[in-house]
């Protein structure tokens, strides 16, 4: 291996790492606000990618039907959790948020899709279809058991993952798709061939991280989410509704997941179940950051991406094994670092 190959590997690694970093951020966000380890974030990656691919082919994506189904599930979830305080007004709100909105999105998409709108419109439409699913998933699956232990929430999360993978197979079929690059520009820098796609991925990731930073640091809603992350009960006492924070967190996770899928789909073929493995790599990064630290998780994502890239060069068949086993020494350090006897909830 010479330097130029090394540089190519690093470029590849960092590009993938950017996507893992996004997913890691989504996982940390959802975990700190709701204590849910959001394993299905990977499915949102698949949904985002496959939805965009359908638009490119001029077809109405399967996610539109899925959105309607999840909307109904969300409605049922809300009816159940708010059954004590249902009023006519509340029913109307629920109907609008979970039935009317998805129906409008579905109508818009069905009308626009055959016209093959410009790429940027396709990307926005894909986000529009996939992002609300995060909210409906929260309403139907997690909110009714918001007070359960982290372990129960994790089992539910894994159960949701296998259900969504099955649904993805129903709605998208077994074929994979690859979308066109967001930018087909390219140039060489010394011996390094840099693609516009890599730059687009890195650029968008940085913009998103910056936007999240501003959101959490400068906006009232962002601060409310941070307050919920620090102390749920305290946040509730000062009037921040946990349900509200949960909805925002899952909506953001939905957007970030879908965006990750849109960014990764020109780089690799995405199948209905590819997102899980991509999500798990973001997950390894989030775990390294202890599921609470954004900067550590982002840094760890770069480590995961670069190690993966070199592993696929040296031992391509074992690259998944190597990536997932990074977690072991990290966890070892964590477990030997802390020795205080502490009761879990």
């Amino acid at each position, binding site marked *: 291996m010479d330097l130029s190959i090394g540089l190519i590997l690093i470029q590849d690694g960092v590009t993938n790492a950017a996507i893992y970093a996004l997913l890691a951020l989504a996982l940390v966000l959802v975990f700190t606000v709701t204590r849910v*380890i959001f394993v299905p974030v990977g499915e949102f990656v698949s949904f985002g990618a496959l939805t965009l691919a359908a638009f490119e082919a001029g077809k109405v994506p399967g996610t539109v039907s899925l959105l309607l189904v999840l909307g109904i599930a969300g409605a049922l979830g809300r009816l159940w959790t708010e059954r004590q305080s249902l009023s006519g007004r509340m029913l109307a709100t629920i109907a609008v948020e979970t039935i009317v909105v998805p129906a409008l999105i579905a109508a818009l998409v069905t009308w626009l899709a055959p016209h093959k709108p410009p790429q940027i419109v396709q990307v926005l439409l894909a986000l529009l279809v996939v992002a609300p699913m995060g909210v409906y998933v929260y309403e139907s*699956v997690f909110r*009714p*058991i918001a007070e*359960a232990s*982290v*372990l*129960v929430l*994790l*089992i*539910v999360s*894994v*159960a*949701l*993952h*296998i*259900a*969504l*993978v*099955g*649904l993805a*197979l*129903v709605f998208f*079929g*077994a074929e994979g798709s690859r979308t066109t690059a967001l930018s087909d520009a390219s140039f060489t820098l010394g011996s390094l061939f840099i693609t516009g796609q890599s730059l687009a991925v890195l650029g968008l990731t940085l913009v998103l991280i910056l936007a999240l930073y501003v959101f959490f640091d400068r906006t009232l809603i962002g601060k409310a989410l941070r307050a919920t992350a620090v102390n749920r009960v305290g946040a509730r006492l000062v009037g921040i509704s946990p349900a509200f924070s949960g909805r925002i967190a899952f909506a953001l996770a939905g957007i970030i997941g879908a965006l990750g899928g849109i960014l990764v789909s020109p780089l690799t073929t995405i199948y209905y179940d590819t997102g899980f*493995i991509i999500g*798990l790599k973001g*997950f*390894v990064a989030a*775990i390294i950051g202890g*599921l609470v630290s954004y900067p550590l998780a982002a840094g760890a994502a770069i480590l995961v991406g670069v190690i993966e890239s070199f592993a696929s060069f040296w031992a391509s*068949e*074992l690259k*998944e*094994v190597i990536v*997932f*086993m990074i*977690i*072991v020494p990290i*966890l*070892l350090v*964590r*477990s*030997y670092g*802390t020795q*205080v*006897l*502490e*009761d*879990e*909830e």
Partner: protein
Amino acid sequence: MSSPSRLAGIAILALAVALPFVPGVPAYWITVASYIAMAAIVALGIAVLTGVAGVVSFGQAMFVGFGAYTTAILTTRYGWSPAATLPVAMLIAGALAWGIGAITLRLKGHYLPVATIAWNISFFYLAGSLDFFRRFDGISGIPPISLLGFSVSDGVRFYFLALGLLVLAYVLTRNLLDSRVGRAMRSLRGGALAAESFGIDTGRARILAFVYAGVLAAVSGWLYAHFQRAINPTPFGITVSIDYLLMAVAGGVGHLGGAILGAGLVTVVRDKLQDLLPALLGTQGNFETIVFGIVLILILQFAPEGLWPHLRRRFASKPRRAPPGADDAPASRRRTLPGPGETVLAVSGLRKTFGGLVAVNDVSFTVQAGEIVGLIGPNGAGKSTSFNLITGVLPASGGEIALGLQPISGWPARRIARLGVARTFQHVKLVHGMSVIDNVALGRHLLGHASAVRGALRLDRAEEAAIFAEAHRQLARVGLADHADAVASELALGQQRLVEIARALCLDPVLLLLDEPAAGLRHSEKVALADLLRKVRDSGVSILLVEHDMDFVMGLTDRLVVMNFGAQLAQGRPAEIQQNPAVLEAYLGSAA
């Protein structure tokens, strides 16, 4: 086990045995029943691991894979006989479970299941990409099992073998849970803190549960390999691990019967759905995962305890254990207690800081043999923290603690418990869902020796009888003899505190630390408690107690140590303390 449910169990077993002999039963049913038996063996392991020890694993299919690959490789490549590979498969899976557990199980809460996901995925790709495992093509040509020259090649014979192993696994597991080691595992759900305070090595108990579940999974894998005669990585992937977890949770995690019920339900439902859903949807695929995922979510939302408890309620259960006579068991051995006037506990310059907060600041006092010392002070004075420092639950930031002449600073809680230090907790820490008497028997953990194997094989009965005789004796001492078989968490709070005291007395303590023992008791109960504590003291046991009820403290204690804002304010006899101006100011505010 109560007699109605025992009868039900025997009836179900009889049906299972009779199944192949019923005329007209299709051979396919026998195949499905064999799959149920194999899955149930794995699910039993999960019942112990997740339901009892509280460890969630998304990696049990990997252990099934360890068993299957071990026998596949040994029989096809080295010509071993299948019967000889079973112990090897169990050994390898057990050793790997121990290794993985040693790395993984020290992790708190959610890291552990997450790590099992990583292990399982890594194993899947490892088996799929190494020639040693024949990659994704897998290993074929695995011979059928032959035992003692008797070939288990047809479906019915295999079914009986699988059923036999399932019954064996069930009986051993039930015995194990009803033993000293099993109680230690069950205590994990009450929190590591309480368990460690009674000398239970919680890390070891978790690893043991993990190894046990791994070995059971390997047995199932061994069966599977010889049933299928060919294996590849797919049935040992993460999705299948989730199926096993679903079985245990659907049936009722923590109930052995629930594990078998869940295995049966999930296997049959999957079998039906695999025919139904592709026809319904018009394409091929593993669509049953959609239904399984949604069902698992609904179970956890609406009936997290699973189906088994609902079913069992129909066969009204009676108390599980007839209380053995307290007197016919051999008298338990007693620790030699220090003589009057000897120092039992010496604390000097004790200090604890949490970041910038000084919780305990330079506290020094002693407890003499046969003395009741009260540790009092306003809320937040550092009393409970001092307790945690003395019992080794928290490491001290500075100062010395000695038991008799033995310095114990820096010792872990379970080592200190070994010296005869027993405690109760300000917030009661009993194991929920476990009976009162089993909770009390936990206090006796250190004085027993029976291993997991002895427990599983029922070779521990004499020791168990002695443990329970002592537990009943101590329970009677605190006046709760009638509640031995009640579920601990269903007692009133004051009674739960008394159960904690009985548990502490079971340790045969030299020093008893009681954190607010009288809170939640009625007046008459407080009087009885004070009488009991005096008797305990008169038998030579020293007592250190934290309490807010001043009448109780003043009437009972020999000496008082007063703390305020982490620091020591005063020491002396109760009468002196009542006159101490500094103490009055701390409690009542400045008189000026």
